[in-house]
């Protein structure tokens, strides 16, 4: 079972890297770019498990390790 996990910074947390890239994009001519936020895309192969198990595991893995919920939020997608 393949899955994708998306981890992004909470709105209230500043994103220096995103800001820097936003500015760099403005500088090279894309002045319409207003906001850039950088998150993580984690692709994983969960082996032979059911969709339910996969979803349960992904939620736990996010809470425990993949995201730091003090500053980040997460979502995921099981691809089958």
């Amino acid at each position, binding site marked *: 079972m393949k899955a994708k996990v998306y981890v992004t910074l909470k709105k209230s947390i500043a994103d*220096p890297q995103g800001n820097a890239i936003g500015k760099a994009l403005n500088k090279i001519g894309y002045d319409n770019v207003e906001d850039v936020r950088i998150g993580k895309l984690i692709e994983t192969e969960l082996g032979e498990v059911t969709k339910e198990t996969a979803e349960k595991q992904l939620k736990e893995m996010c809470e425990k390790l993949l995201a730091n919920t003090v500053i980040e939020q997460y979502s995921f997608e099981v691809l089958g």
Partner: protein
Amino acid sequence: MKFGIVVFPGSNCDIDCYHALRDSLNQDVDYIWHDTEGLKEYDCIILPGGFSYGDYLRCGAVAPFSKVMDEIRVHAEKGKLLVGICNGFQILTEMGLLPGALVRNKNLKFICNTVPLKVENIDTPFTNRCDLGQVINIPIAHGEGNYVVEKDELAKMKENRQILFTYQENPNGSVLDIAGICNEGKNVLGMMPHPERACEELLGNREGRLVFESIISFLEGGWKSE
């Protein structure tokens, strides 16, 4: 009095802490391997700097799952002293033993330099040998030392006087120039600067000793909390 220094795969400053405590401050000190079961009694445990588990995903993200860490949590919950320096600070926030988190430096670069810190609270086991407002010069060496925390939490920390050290010239973008904090119980310290790098004249700086001397005098009973 006994100090313990936890060694994770990827710890780099374990040795520096060991030498500072043993050779410069004449203390009894052990290394604690991350996989240890049955932790001995220590008066103060240090989580040293470095790149535990490569600091992959997030700095300090994997270290909390090391075998010894459950017992270290218990050690802290008993009110005993626990210090996280640099990567150790990151680990303590990841474990939820300290509030907030540490993110990329504002300039997105690793910074290694000696910087002036202001001591903001001297009524703690970690700062009692300092003067209030005293400025001490301590090396920093980190890529992710930019302290962030939610507003309400920050207000609580201020109220409780949990902010112990601030940067005189903010190098990394930390909120309120924060360089080091403690928990509500004032027995857990996290700081990005490296006091263990500033303990001997040969290296040109002894100002980091103040932190360790504070701990020692607290443990000797020479200082009592409020």
